């Protein structure tokens, strides 16, 4: 039963016979998980909260960075450095107090996916790596959730509904990931700031349609959007009966190592990106990591490094590779001030047989900046 305030808040929905009182009540008890609170997750979560989705789960390991503000419309300038899911939850509850938010400040992994997915019926995929796309897909298939997928590249986007009983899953369309480093991400290739608004809002539309059982959801269709041509295209796609996860004889019956599947950490040039906070978390469980600081020595005096690191400035790395030979089988975590030189270092290392690498996204300066902001907020 809707309250007087709710009758007013959702008045424009109630006018639509396709939604009406029954539909709005369905939305108010619906459970939707948004994975990735970036370009796609922000507009999608805003519209889902505004529509009165009763239970909204938010998953993101990251913090708000200045470079996010061009498109991640949940955050303001003051949120820079804050944990994304916390800033997002605050904003969404302010928008609509009817919405109960569950915030997961963690990276979605094969280990935690079942725990995070279990109380939700629909998963909105707003992630930004191939490994996480396959993980979200497989978890949806295995745990019986519907995957409302969207992704971006420069001026283009895609939307579809996967893992629906009547259609294909992501793996049916993309059985094999691209080679590591072959397809640049938004941080490398850029993205038009408004594009995630269009794609994320389309994903949110599909979630509402699925909950309300109205219209024709994007099952068996892959919607393509080209913002330069300003053209939407609807491609027909179909379930692959030989799909290893949703096919007739599935061979994937549990979640796997998605970094390995996508070649990350294993193939040449396939190093992964992690923030300093994530690296510190990883170090608690892994003892095969080598921290490599590739800044100049003078920089380390001004800004301290992370834990016990080996210092080899980038320019000296080719001549000093011998010092790292003992660590050839370990995973090298490279960092510098901003995360650019460390990528070059990992490329040099990769060319010399050090194939397992992690690059510290945003570098050590970002980490210290986050610490400083937290202190100034009195946390």
């Amino acid at each position, binding site marked *: 039963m809707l309250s007087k305030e709710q009758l007013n808040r959702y008045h424009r929905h109630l006018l639509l016979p396709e939604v009406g009182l029954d539909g709005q009540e369905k939305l108010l008890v619906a459970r939707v998980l948004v994975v990735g609170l970036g*370009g*796609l997750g922000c507009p999608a979560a805003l519209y889902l909260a505004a529509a009165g989705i009763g239970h909204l789960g938010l998953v993101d390991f990251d913090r708000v960075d200045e470079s996010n503000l061009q498109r991640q419309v949940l955050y303001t300038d003051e949120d820079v450095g804050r944990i994304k899911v916390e800033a997002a939850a605050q904003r969404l509850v302010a928008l609509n107090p009817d919405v109960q938010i569950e915030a997961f400040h963690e990276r979605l992994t094969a280990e935690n996916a079942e725990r995070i997915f279990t109380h939700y019926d629909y998963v909105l995929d707003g992630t930004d790596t191939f490994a996480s796309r396959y993980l979200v897909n497989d978890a949806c298939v295995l745990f019986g959730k519907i995957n409302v997928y969207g992704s971006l590249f420069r001026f283009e986007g895609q939307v579809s509904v996967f893992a629906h009983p009547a259609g294909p899953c992501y793996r049916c*369309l993309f059985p094999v990931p691209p080679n590591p480093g*072959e397809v640049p991400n938004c941080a490398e290739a850029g993205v038009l700031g408004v594009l995630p608004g269009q794609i994320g809002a389309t994903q949110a539309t599909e979630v509402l349609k699925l909950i309300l059982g109205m219209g024709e959801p994007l099952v068996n269709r892959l919607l*393509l959007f*080209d913002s330069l041509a300003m053209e939407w295209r609807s491609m027909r796609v179909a379930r692959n009966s030989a799909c290893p996860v949703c096919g007739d004889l599935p061979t994937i019956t549990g979640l796997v190592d998605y970094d390995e599947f996508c070649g990350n950490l294993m193939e040449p040039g396939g190093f992964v990106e992690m923030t300093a906070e994530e690296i510190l978390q990883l170090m608690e469980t892994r003892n095969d990591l080598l921290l490599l600081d590739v800044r100049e020595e003078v920089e380390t005096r001004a800004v301290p490094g992370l834990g016990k690191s080996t210092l080899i400035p980038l320019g000296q790395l080719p001549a000093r590779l011998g010092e790292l030979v003992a660590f050839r089988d370990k995973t090298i975590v490279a960092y510098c001030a901003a995360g650019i030189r460390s990528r070059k270092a990992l490329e040099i290392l990769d060319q010399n047989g050090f194939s397992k690498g992690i690059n510290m996204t945003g570098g050590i300066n970002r980490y210290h900046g986050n610490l400083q902001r937290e202190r100034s907020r009195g946390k």
Partner: protein
Amino acid sequence: MKITIELWGQLKQVAGESCLSLELPEGATVQDAIRLLASQAVSLASSLVEEDGTCRPSNLVFVNDHQILLSDPLQDGNTITLMSPIAGG
């Protein structure tokens, strides 16, 4: 026969254009068209075919907006849409 090729994603960026046309013999398959494109547009070659000449399985391929098999024969006037996977969010 004349076939139109539309490129999306990274393929479009690498090629620098979104639409190309190919002349193929009667009976040619989708795979034949992709191989011919790889031989004519050198910048796209490594994104389209493996070293052994097989088509890269990570790309999505449609003919006239429908998913197809690479071995499917083409008809004059068909449009092949080739798309490299994207994951940005």
